[in-house]
């Protein structure tokens, strides 16, 4: 089994993620123990820090943006969504990157933050079942996945799983539950789906970037989860869209609100996003998940927006730069060579535009009548 695992998985990727953990730790140490040190990022015009998931996309964006906008310097750091939110709010960085929208508690605590959706991503259930062909797409629903992750369903040939997949012959193999150990946006999206579909999950665990997992084993970074699932017979895990393609993983079709089993692809994820954007009831501050509760019967039920968080207290000069960068990222920055190649689905600018106007109004009071356009 272990021979199937591409070597670079454990050698390079895992080390890289762990080294970045240390770097992130240092970052946090400065943030926690050295408040009031705004010059931590001295010498750069814009600083983006936070979500490790968005980090690769932000890197290619920063590179391209600096090429086309001479004199602008952007520094990007992968420090975790929590760090991004907290430090964008207190003004240590210009943009905080987060995988999760601000829930009620955090909206109260960080009332000066404006969330800007910047890309699409999702969480997909991956598995490694001995004797089942890798190309088989399992059908799973929220309650079943929740029962697996609660430790209630323990074997792959459980009657519930078999009932949903009558064509697949399952071995009597123990299910090895894997999950992320670090705080992760993918975890937030994944647990959001379980939270909205399973009452047992809602009562016992809930939705969080780093929840209290009842069973299983945890790994630092999606790369480590992929490595563990691929090398452990009977394993189940979850990762974002980009990883599925890169490592040719088997991923399950998840049941959506209409009872359809939908595979996570760029197309079905976009459908989820569009249906939210077109819904007049969807809040303009984007503080609602696009998991499960959607009006498109073909939408993937476990997608999410990636966010940039910007504080309304930024000074005028920085704010102008940030606005420019946001408009660029939502326009030319959504080209496939940036988004899709970094593992994200591109955001549609047109349906977003009226909402974006309202968001950007909040970011530059007094200059709010200017029409926004990409570029």
């Amino acid at each position, binding site marked *: 089994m272990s021979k199937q695992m591409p070597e670079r998985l454990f050698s390079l990727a895992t080390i890289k993620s762990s080294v970045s953990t240390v770097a992130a730790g240092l970052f946090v140490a400065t943030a926690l123990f050295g408040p009031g040190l705004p010059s931590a990022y001295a010498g750069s015009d814009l600083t983006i820090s936070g979500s490790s998931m968005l980090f690769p996309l932000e890197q290619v964006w920063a590179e391209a943006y600096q090429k086309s906008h001479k004199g602008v310097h952007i520094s990007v750091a992968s420090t975790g969504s929590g760090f991004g939110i907290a430090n964008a709010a207190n003004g240590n960085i210009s943009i905080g990157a987060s995988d999760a929208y601000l829930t009620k508690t955090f909206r109260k605590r960080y009332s000066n933050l404006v969330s800007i959706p910047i890309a699409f991503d999702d969480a997909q259930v991956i598995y490694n079942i001995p004797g089942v062909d890798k190309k088989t797409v399992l059908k799973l629903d929220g309650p079943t996945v929740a029962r697996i992750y609660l430790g209630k369903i323990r074997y792959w040939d459980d009657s519930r799983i078999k009932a949903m997949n009558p064509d697949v012959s399952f071995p009597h193999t123990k299910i090895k539950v894997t999950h992320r150990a670090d705080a992760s946006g993918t975890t937030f999206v994944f647990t959001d789906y379980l939270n909205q579909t399973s009452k047992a999950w809602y009562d016992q665990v809930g939705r969080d970037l780093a929840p*209290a997992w009842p069973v299983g084993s945890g790994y630092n970074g999606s790369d480590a989860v992929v490595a563990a699932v691929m090398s452990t017979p009977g394993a189940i895990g979850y990762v974002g869209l980009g990883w599925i393609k890169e490592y040719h993983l088997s991923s399950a079709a998840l049941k959506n609100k209409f009872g359809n089993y939908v595979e996570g692809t760029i197309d079905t994820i976009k459908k989820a996003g569009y249906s939210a954007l077109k819904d007049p009831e969807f809040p303009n501050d984007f503080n609602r998940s696009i998991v499960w509760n959607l009006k498109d019967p073909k939408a993937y039920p476990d997608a999410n927006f990636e966010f940039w968080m910007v504080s309304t207290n930024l000074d005028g000069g920085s704010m102008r730069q940030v606005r420019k960068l946001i408009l660029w990222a939502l326009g030319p920055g959504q080209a496939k060579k940036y988004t899709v190649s970094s593992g994200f689905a591109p955001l549609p600018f047109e349906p977003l535009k009226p909402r974006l106007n309202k968001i950007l109004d909040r970011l530059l009071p007094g200059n709010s009548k200017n029409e926004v356009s990409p570029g």
Partner: protein
Amino acid sequence: MEKVEMNSGEELYPTPAIGEIRVEQPSRRLMRGAHLSREDRMFGWTLKGGALFILILFLIVLGVCIVTAWPSITKFGFAFLWSSAWNPSRQIFGAFPYLVGTLWVTGIALVVAIPVAILSALFLSDYVPKWLGGIVSTLMEMLAGIPSIVFGAFGIAFVVPLLRDHVEPFIARTLGAHWDFFNGDPMGYGILAAGLVVAFMIIPLVATVTRDSLLMVPREMVEASYALGATQVETLLFVKLKAVIPGIIGSITLGFGRAVGETMAVLLLIGNQGSIPHTIQDVGYTISALLANTFTYAVIDPLYSAAEVELGLILLLITLVMNTLGRKLLMRLMGGRLAGSVGGG
């Protein structure tokens, strides 16, 4: 206290003790520096400054940790230590699973490392041919210098598959037939993998210090033993090894300190699950791995970060207690003739 002991051991011809460096104590007048020139005194102050800096640094670290951890300390009290509930979104925190995980990894590491290290130290000091001794010693010192992330990668690439496919099923088949504790699901990742790899990391540490202690056993002692008719094995086990027990204990204390705080290799191997291990094949979680994994997120909430910093304080406390105990035990064994270092040698 130590000074008095050191000065009073003069009446008899002292039993040679390892780890003891006898320093003539200068008189009080000399100590006060009455005879010193200005440069000497300035140099003295510089030295004192350096020493003071270490002390202040320690106090600052301790102070900042206590202040940051205060909300958690006051909210949960001592119950923090034995509560197993850890649910950040519900603001409930308990250290027990992480404490247990830390002790498991450290325990497995020490149980594996100590015998191997002592055997290799004995080999290196007494049995090895000279040409091989140099090579092995150098390799061992190089091993001690390998960064822990490399050990972690080695663990994932080699130890985990080995344990999953061969060792853990074997343990479950043999020992597991009699005791449930050995009859878990073979997963590869877990306390066993983490403990073993940490053992690999501390073996060179314990072995080098023990070897150095063995090499410093006075020739007279060994010769006396042979003169009384002891064999090589008897001399080694009952004379030399006995003489270096303080050195071994010191090195174990060092190894414990490293094992208890090891982060990167453990984080990659232990399977980071905050539950109490029931079998040797189970996954677990150590304090340091938890902090490395989630501390960047914990800063978002004051109580969350307080709880994690309190875990760090507990780790600090464990290390302090172990070091103190190690010293105390050493003092007893040495009959109070302990010179400054616990490192032996």
